[in-house]
């Protein structure tokens, strides 16, 4: 079983650098014999870089256009929605007014009274025009003149 040991004395980077000076040229020299990736790899990286630049360029060109388009679509949607709400509200007001007119006098009538109230409304309308049953009796003078 291996035990993890801790160092008693901290290592100074300067001392290490000095030690490394003796060894470094050897390793560098040795490894530098094989440190060139093939031109095929370098070309592939270059091609990928060019492709990525092109993708970014296209993105930059189209993003403002799409942003404007999205903003216009949102605005159109909002305006449409507002118009729809306005129309619905107007329709509501109109239908309520019509309902009110049609149910004039019967708006607060209890259930079952609606029919009689409608009849009452009809009578009222006739009364307004002077055509109700009670007042449709001709006075004698009127009848006379009509007979003449």
């Amino acid at each position, binding site marked *: 079983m291996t035990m993890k040991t801790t*160092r008693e004395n*901290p*290592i*100074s*980077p300067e001392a*290490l650098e000095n*030690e*490394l000076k*003796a*060894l*470094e040229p*050897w*390793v*560098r*020299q*040795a*490894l*530098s*014999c*094989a*440190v*060139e*990736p*093939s031109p095929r*790899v*370098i070309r*592939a*990286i*270059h091609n*990928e*870089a*060019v492709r*990525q*630049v092109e993708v*970014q*360029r296209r993105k930059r060109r189209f993003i403002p256009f799409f942003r404007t388009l999205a903003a216009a679509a949102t605005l159109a949607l909002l305006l449409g929605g507002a118009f729809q709400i306005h129309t619905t509200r107007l329709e509501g007001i109109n239908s309520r007014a019509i309902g009110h007119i049609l149910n004039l006098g019967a708006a607060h009538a209890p259930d079952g009274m609606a029919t009689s109230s409608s009849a009452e409304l009809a009578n009222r309308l006739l009364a307004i025009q002077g055509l109700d049953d009670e007042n449709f009796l001709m006075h004698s003078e009127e009848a006379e003149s009509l007979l003449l």
Partner: protein
Amino acid sequence: MPDDSTSDADLLSAFAKGDAIALDLLVARYRQALFSWLMGMTGNRADAEDLFQDIWFRVIRHAERFNDVSFKAWLWKIARNILIDFRRKRKPDLSLDAVDENDDTPLLNQLTATDIGPADSVEQTDLTKRVMRAVASLPEVQRDVFLMRVQGNLSFGEIATTLGIPLNTALGRMHDAMTKLKKMLGDEK
């Protein structure tokens, strides 16, 4: 226009703004250091090339997100993550006498197969073999620190940041690596 005197961060920023040449300069700047580190860590040229490509592809895709203090430390952080992923998928083969799957030439011969002058070649090859063997025999944690310092030219502070370890641990690993290397290379002299 970026040139050799432009800082790493400025080159990356220029690339992120659409200058592909800036990335070429950055690759050229770290080509040798990164690739030799990968060679030291994988012991295999084909793997080192694949990883080298993957590392730069990731740099390319994440260039806009760079906000570290040091590009070099950031690059090595990416490199280490990719190396860890690679090792998870595949067991490492660090035998210097191993034969690369894509090439019948033993690894040591690949490492030394370069344009060295005839007079120097025997001596150079011998040195390379000895050093490579010694480096490859180091425990991975020590080899990692050693190659980052020597090949990557990262400061100990950058190494500690990259590996996510305390500075003293990085120094300790380096010290142990050098002690072993000196002993091995000294014994062979």
